[in-house]
């Protein structure tokens, strides 16, 4: 069983992979990138929800920190959701330039966000939730996306 940190870090790489496939498709033909985009959007949304509905909740309950790092991560999730939504619109209107402008912005936002999580938040979560780690990972894995 992987730890919370390992599990979520691996999921970041999974999302990166979907991102790369999506950009690759969009580069060849923006019209054909729709399904790849949806796969990426779903994987990312699932990741956000695993954090927001499971891990952050457990972390906040344990540490009492509701206004700290988790609030900031939720805020950045909102920023990313907004960009992903706009990327979907760019694909619909087949606007390649707009799409890549947005994907470039999302990429950097996402990566610096992941870095903060992997360097700090996951490490903190692993320390505070070490006993509950298997249960938390289990819950994240079996979660149904809303």
């Amino acid at each position, binding site marked *: 069983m992987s730890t919370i940190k390992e599990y979520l870090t691996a999921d970041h790489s999974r999302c990166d992979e979907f991102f790369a496939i999506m950009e690759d498709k969009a580069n060849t033909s923006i019209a054909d990138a729709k399904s790849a985009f949806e796969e990426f959007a779903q994987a990312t949304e699932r990741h956000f929800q695993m954090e927001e509905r499971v891990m952050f909740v457990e972390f906040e309950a344990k540490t009492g920190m509701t206004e700290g790092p988790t609030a900031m991560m939720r805020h950045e999730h909102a920023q990313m959701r907004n960009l992903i939504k706009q990327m979907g619109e760019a694909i619909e209107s087949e606007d390649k330039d707009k799409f890549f402008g947005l994907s470039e912005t999302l990429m950097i936002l996402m990566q610096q966000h992941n870095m903060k999580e992997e*360097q700090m938040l996951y490490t903190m979560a692993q320390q505070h939730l070490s006993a509950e780690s298997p249960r938390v990972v289990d819950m994240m894995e079996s979660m149904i996306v809303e």
Partner: protein
Amino acid sequence: MELNGLSTDQAPPISAPLRFYVTAPLFAIIAGFMMLFSQADVLMSRYSLDSIVITHALTIGFLGFVMLGSLTQMLPVLAGVKIPKVDTISKISYISLVAGTIFMLLGLKYEAYIFNTLAMLLLSFGFVMMISVIAMAILKVKNFNATVKAMSVSLVFGAFTVLMGLFLLYTYIDNEYAQYRNVVANIHSVWGIFGFGGILIIGVAFQVLPMFYVAPRFKQFCKKRVVLLISVGLVIWLFSNVFADTYSFIAKAWIALFFWAFATTVWRKLTQRRRPISDVTVWYWRVASVFLTLGSFLWIFDEYFKHEYIVVVAILLGGGFILSIMVGMLYKIIPFLVWFHLNAMGYMSIPTMNEMINKNLAKVQFFLFIASLVGFVFAFYIPILLKISALSFIVSMAILQYNVIAPILIYKRVKKTKPDFDMSAFTIK
């Protein structure tokens, strides 16, 4: 507006890195004009005053400023630590570094005692202040990763480079120590290029290549050992250079080998990257690895040619390697910072990163810059090339200046016109 503070709370104010970034190209333009009005045979000697002045307009004015600006921005993201009072401190040290650099250029160029003295005071104040607050922040880091380790090592080399630089400047004020000048200058430049600049870039590459281009991650050996191996090489080189110069080529080969390995690794990682996009920043990384390879080998061979080619080595490494990567990274960092800060304020209809800098203008800037570097190298044999290359360099840096300012103007315009103000995306379900 409570949410607003969450990310800006951690990130430094946008002005802290930007003031350094905006100023850097200006010093490069100054360096370009000095090259234009200088003679090729004078610049062929690394110890001529003209060479020293031009070099420092670039190393302090461009490289140093970009490095300091980036450190204020990167430490919170990479290491989760804030630089204490970053806004005030970066402002004060920025002012003294700008004034100090200008006084130093004037002081050395016109051999003016008073300017050199002022420069020494201002530069030491600015650098000591900046380096010590960054060091204080690093001391608070809990989870050291490879990049933060590399940054810390680079900072140590940086501190020594600055100290030696201050001593060197002092030898122009008080002639008594002038006899040590060449020995110290040699160490100062080697530690500055490989220890301060080179190690910082290696550390940043560990993060940036996988992050921006979805390139494969660096192997654990690279991340854990390479910085240490290079640092040991630099210390051994220092002692062999001072006490047993006949053996110093071994340490040189050691250092150059690892940088060459780094250059080829960068090239391979970029080839294996998952993102199909090839923009000017990728080109900058690519040419930087070519220049680094050439520069490293020439640095070793130069040993057998009575150091005839050391100026060419400096062009290849300082310009081709370090400057290239920094310019390339500016093209990513500045649009992102502008976007990030505007977005965090709640503005939604803002240009994307790609719309902030004209891509074609960035390409023109790239080609003029690379052409000028190649020209400078060949000006070694064909002196007439110096003027043309200097012109090409000036134009490329003027375009860079424009490209750096353009996103900042967008930032100001959006803040002023307030196109929309939509926090609805941030409502928590």
